[in-house]
């Protein structure tokens, strides 16, 4: 029996009059990689951004339903967004390190929390950079600007930055779409390893990537969850006709 980390219950989301997510319910297994796939505009990124409540900032957004983390609905009014986002980290489509040093990028979340102790800070930065396989490449230049790194390195830095606050879940929003094939392969490998310590939820429109690295896959179409299940099964014997058509390249 798989243990679940996140539970989505009847999630609906509107931007203005337009409904983007339609009555979505499923559970995300603990310490596994779950991929959300679907054609452009199906709402997959919007769904991903529900988990750390990044949609809240948009104007004119309405959200109904529950997302339960550790038995607690994150959409409760008294939720502290700051600690929620430290528990559920995020890595974006394009690498977006801050124009600060490599060290300060990784330390950012901890500083926000009010960490002052230099030695402890250094330890966590080192560990996070090691966990994102960047340490050996940057250990001699932690004080140089993160902007000097290559795209792939920047994305791993963003992963280190997300890891530093010791999250339970990391959300990846098409993390390799702006990268070359080699960097992509490295990030995929890295994500596969991350699942030993965190739960990974990843949006991708690269079906190959979802098939390669994810344990579970959710197929989203026009704001609806069409199918959710073990990746191997979903990719080989899809239950729904729409999933079959999407995987066969009928639309996308």
């Amino acid at each position, binding site marked *: 029996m798989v243990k679940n980390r996140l539970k989505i219950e009847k999630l609906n989301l509107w931007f203005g009059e337009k409904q983007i997510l339609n009555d979505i319910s499923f559970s995300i297994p603990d310490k596994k990689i779950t991929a959300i796939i679907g054609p452009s505009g199906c709402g997959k990124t919007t769904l991903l951004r529900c988990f*750390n409540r*990044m949609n809240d*900032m948009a104007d004119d957004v309405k959200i109904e339903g529950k997302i339960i983390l550790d038995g607690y609905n994150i959409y409760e009014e008294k939720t502290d*967004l*700051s*600690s*929620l*986002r*430290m528990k559920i*980290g*995020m890595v*974006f489509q*394009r690498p*977006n*390190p*801050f*124009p*600060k*040093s490599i060290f300060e990028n990784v330390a*950012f*979340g901890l*500083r*926000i*929390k009010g960490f002052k102790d230099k030695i402890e800070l250094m330890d966590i930065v080192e560990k996070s950079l090691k966990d994102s396989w960047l340490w050996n490449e940057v250990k001699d230049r932690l004080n140089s*600007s993160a*902007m000097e790194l290559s795209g792939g390195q920047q994305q791993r830095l*963003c992963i280190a*930055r*997300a890891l530093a*606050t010791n999250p339970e879940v990391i959300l990846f929003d098409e993390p390799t779409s702006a990268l070359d094939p080699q960097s992509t392969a490295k990030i995929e490998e890295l994500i596969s390893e991350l699942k030993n310590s965190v739960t990974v939820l990843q949006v991708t429109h690269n079906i190959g990537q979802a098939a390669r690295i994810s344990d579970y896959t959710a197929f989203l179409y026009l704001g609806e969850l069409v199918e959710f299940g073990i990746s191997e099964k979903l990719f080989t014997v899809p239950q729904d006709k729409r999933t079959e058509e999407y995987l066969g390249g009928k639309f996308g």
Partner: protein
Amino acid sequence: MGLRKLKEILGINALRLAILISVIFLFLFIILIFVKGGKLISFTFLTQPPKAGMTKGGIFPAIIGTLYLTILSLLFAFPIGVLSAIYLVEYAKENLLVTIIRTAIGTLAGVPSIIFGLFGLAIFVVTFGFGVSILSGSLTLGIMVLPLIIKASEEAIKAVPDSFREASYALGATRRQTILKVVVPTAIPSILTGAIMSIGRAAGETAPILFTAATFYTRRLPKSIFDEVMVLPYHIYALMTEGTSPEYQVPIAYGTAVVLLGLVLVISSVSIIIRYRMRRSKKW
């Protein structure tokens, strides 16, 4: 040769001509000022007060006066300008009031400087009772450069990519933390560019300080911000219009112009160096 090629050549040469004309006038301007005023520059000229009915001596009190006015006006306008810009970009919702504020700031930037002088006279000199003083002059100059600083800071803050803000929020930062730790540090080099432009204007304007801070002649240096001061641009104006022995005073006016240019250059260079050093670590 085809017509398209001809057009191409004509086009590029029109551009060359335009830049040539700008450069020629710039050089003529600098050469003229330096030829006429350069030979006056000496240690005495920079460190002595005027003597013998403004026909001899130096312009030291005017240099000090200009420094006071420029620095004080920026101390006043820079923080208020940057804070206003932060509010306008990061907090203000698009509504009628904010549109009115934006338009007002835009309009204020285009108001002739003499109007600021009249305003300063009415408000600071008379109503607030600061008299003709460094304080009144600095506040007047400060208000004059405020729209410049707000505009430049607004553009700088808007230019900070939203992906930086998102990354910050996603790491648990609050809006205040995002602004203080990400947005402002990223924008500060460009914000300083606005401040540098303001230095040039604040140091060089005559009209706003005509009624609010400047005096034609004083031997002593200001003791407090309630003293009136000699200032470089007004010194030039006074020598050229009210002098009684132009054969001595016109050269001094050109010498003063050289000093004023030099002063603006020095203050700007310092800010440019600061900006460069910041930008080196912050480029993206």
